[in-house]
């Protein structure tokens, strides 16, 4: 009898919990705040020290560079500089700075602040010079004033110096011509931080332990990231949330929402459920298979990000017979790219005919060999190359990964293998977990034929073509001086029209030379509650929350 009573009490208690829970639901939308589901915490809120998307998403709200991008495009527009000119030799760039701008700590933005930041980056201490930390400085500017062992020095640097000409005129001096320089300045990695805060909160101070790992001792990047952007850091509880508040000193139109909260949710299914339950109001990189679910929900919506990536089948010419052009052409004709694009991308991909995405200057469009799926042509080419059919190839694809340009690598690989086998090849599969196993195999030149891709960092063709084909790269295994020179010349050309033409020619040459076969450009997607308005998706994910609000 007593035990029955006990059971009854337990049941009543459980009912009570459920009833109380139902009376008070989970966190719901506040009118002046937006919760965005990020896939992880930022690494640090200091632009030059990060290259991952979640760090940059926060950095984009707090810091601004000399130039910016027109929302939703890769078109350069004034930001902290209102105008600029390049000298005839392309080695001196003069920027007129915007007046009346203050950092969120109240200190003024001026030419001295610009030089302070550039010199800070150029003078980074040894532990911060590796590409994992200062990837964009390494990529764009290439050298440091005081290089640590193994780091590039001033002789490799594009940056030479910075001169102030009065309070609002600044000159950046370069060691050689580069046109991608201006496009790269639009990266918020090169956003200008308050010199006062950088010093006060010891941005670059730290110790190096016996394992060589840098441990920052300052608090600039964790508690006091001070920029000129529409938002400023309110609080950061690692693993839980990061809050930014509207910057009352912002020089431009004030942010429409007072607070943005970034909540780390690493699991895509959990992100979707949190959006459905109203606990978050948006998230990025929606899996293609979830798009139909979101579109079917009357309270949610999908936002497309313009295609700015490429998925490709890489070919390593260091592994015979991939050094034979006809074999590479046979692979290109043997890949049924149209079927893969239509079947595995939920309508969000277009077949790629060249390496650059169509939205980028330098995309050729015309004159590029197209390689439609043609098994007979592929077989003829293999025979003309003196190969005995079927030609064995080792085909690599990654597991445990979904990239915006390659959401389901295994199915892509299986479809390509089927079409290649129709075309005179005998495919042997190899797979490995994406990171770091698969990338280690491919990047060290051990994979013969493989799936890979690239998402652009900034709106410049050099970020695609020169990064991949501008110098010897073990994953492609070729030494082609003609191509290296073409791309170097194109990068140094300061006349925009000539530069575009140079890259168009390079694109045509690349598609004839076939270091890889591009197969899709895709449109990544964001998801939001339907009443969220004003978010402009950018091809390079440089997106501001300042214009976001709720519809009535």
């Amino acid at each position, binding site marked *: *009898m*007593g*035990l029955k009573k006990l*059971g009854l009490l*337990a049941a009543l208690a459980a009912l009570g919990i459920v009833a109380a*829970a*139902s009376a*008070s*639901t*989970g*966190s719901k939308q*506040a009118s002046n705040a937006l919760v965005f589901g990020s896939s992880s*915490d930022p*690494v*640090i809120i200091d632009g030059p020290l990060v*290259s991952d998307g979640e760090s940059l998403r926060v950095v984009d709200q707090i810091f601004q560079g000399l130039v910016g991008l027109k929302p939703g495009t890769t078109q350069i527009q004034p930001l902290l500089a209102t105008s600029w000119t390049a000298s005839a030799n392309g080695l001196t760039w003069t920027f007129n700075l915007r007046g009346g701008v203050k950092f969120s700590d109240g200190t003024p933005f001026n030419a001295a602040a610009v030089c302070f930041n550039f010199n800070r980056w150029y003078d980074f201490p*040894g532990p911060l*010079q*590796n*590409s*994992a930390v200062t990837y964009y400085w390494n*990529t764009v500017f290439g050298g440091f004033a005081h290089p*640590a*062992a*193994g*780091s590039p020095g001033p002789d490799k640097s594009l940056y030479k110096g910075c001169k102030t000409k009065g309070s609002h005129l600044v000159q950046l001096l370069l060691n050689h011509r580069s046109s991608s320089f201006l496009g790269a300045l639009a990266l918020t990695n090169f956003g200008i931080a308050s010199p006062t805060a950088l010093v006060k909160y010891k941005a670059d101070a*730290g110790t190096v*332990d*016996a*394992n*060589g*790992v*840098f*441990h920052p001792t300052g608090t600039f990047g964790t508690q006091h990231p001070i920029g000129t952007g529409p938002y400023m850091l309110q609080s950061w509880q*690692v*693993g*839980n*949330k990061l809050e930014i508040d509207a910057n009352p000193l912002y020089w431009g139109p004030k942010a429409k929402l007072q607070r943005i909260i970034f*909540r*780390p949710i*690493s*699991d895509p*299914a*959990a992100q979707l*459920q*949190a959006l459905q*339950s*109203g*606990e*978050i109001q948006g998230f990025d990189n929606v899996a293609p298979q979830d798009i139909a679910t979101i579109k079917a929900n009357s309270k949610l919506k999908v936002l497309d990000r313009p295609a700015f990536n490429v998925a490709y089948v890489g070919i390593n010419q260091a592994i015979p017979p991939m050094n034979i052009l006809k074999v590479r052409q046979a692979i290109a004709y043997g890949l049924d790219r149209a079927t893969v694009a239509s079947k595995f991308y939920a309508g969000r991909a277009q077949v790629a005919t060249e390496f650059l995405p169509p939205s980028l200057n330098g995309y050729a469009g015309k004159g590029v060999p197209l390689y439609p799926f043609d098994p007979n042509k592929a077989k003829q080419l293999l025979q003309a190359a003196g190969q005995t059919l079927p030609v064995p190839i080792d085909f690599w694809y990654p597991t445990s990964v979904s990239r915006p340009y390659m959401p389901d690598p295994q199915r892509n690989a299986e479809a390509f293998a089927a079409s290649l086998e129709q075309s005179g090849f005998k495919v042997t599969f190899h797979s490995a*977990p994406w*990171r*770091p*196993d698969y*990338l*280690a195999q491919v*990047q*060290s030149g051990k994979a013969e034929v493989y799936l*890979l891709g690239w998402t652009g960092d900034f709106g410049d063709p050099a970020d695609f073509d020169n990064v991949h084909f501008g110098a010897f790269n*073990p994953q492609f295994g070729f030494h082609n001086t003609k191509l290296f020179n073409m791309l170097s010349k194109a990068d140094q050309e300061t006349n925009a029209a000539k530069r575009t033409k140079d890259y168009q020619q390079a694109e045509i040459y690349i598609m004839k030379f076939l270091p890889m076969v591009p197969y899709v450009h895709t449109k990544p997607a964001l998801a939001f509650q339907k009443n969220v308005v004003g978010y402009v998706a950018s091809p390079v994910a440089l997106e501001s929350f300042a214009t976001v609000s709720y519809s009535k």
Partner: protein
Amino acid sequence: MLRFIVRRLFLLVPILLGVSLLVFVWIHLLPGSPAQALLGERATPQSIAQINHQFGLDKPLYVQYWRYLVETVGHLNLGTSIKTFRPVTFEIENRFPATVELALGAMAFALAVGIPLGFFAAKKYGSFFDHSSLIFSLLGISIPIFFLGLILKYIFAVRLGWLPSIGREDVLATRSHPTNFYILDAILNGDPGALWDTIKHLILPSIALGSIPLAIVTRITRAAVLDVQNEDYVRTARAKGLPPFQVDQRHVLRNALLPISTIIGLQTGLLLSGAVLTETVFAWPGVGSWLKDAIFDRDYPVLQGGIMFLAVVFVVVNLIVDISYAVINPRIRLS
């Protein structure tokens, strides 16, 4: 008792040395390197060599291990993450309380449901209820946690909107967390709203994670009660005319709790080492999901420091289990 505790604590030294060596060898046997993990598609041979040089990864393994020991033991430093620059101790301080709360929540759920279920199943041995409880506990152990988690969230968060699906507290709340144990903080702050909010966030992950110990506790309780209720002293108690409730409470359940206490200890030890899937599905900021990320990032200092810490936790929890075993059953002597 004190000698026993001190001896067990001394045993930590060889255990930790062994664990450190095993972990060191294991992570260096994995293909790929931190450089490739950090740089992803952007890695070049030069940048990989640069990073390997900076972190000393181009040195012989024994040199790297020695340096690691010097840093850990000599400077009492568990290391700093290669990826995030955050010290391992900072992450542990932040995340371990979340893991402890989740583990305790899961065990509380498993005990609150499992003990009565197992007890009544034994009392109604062979009945429909008994068979149902067995099937229920089997289901608990065989449904993958991530699937159960998603289903629970779909029902209670998405469809019904009763409970939150992610995190430890309402994201709009602005509360201080001096201990990082949110329930404790809410009690210390005398804030019933915060307490209820924290409990609400704990319910679904606790049920998902507790499904495994629930199944084990139910089955062990059932078996133990079946054993104990046929003992002579139980029959004697009944023959003396003791009310059935008192027999069950004082003689059956109390004696059946001994094997359950062992299971509780072992399971809690396991749960404290991090519930990777539950933490991932519920965006629960504990040590499990943190260490999972570190494996993919080949973040050597985090893996070494984090696993060393968990080894200490596991040993200490087992020590507590052994001590509690002696307290519950005075016939057992620790030696």
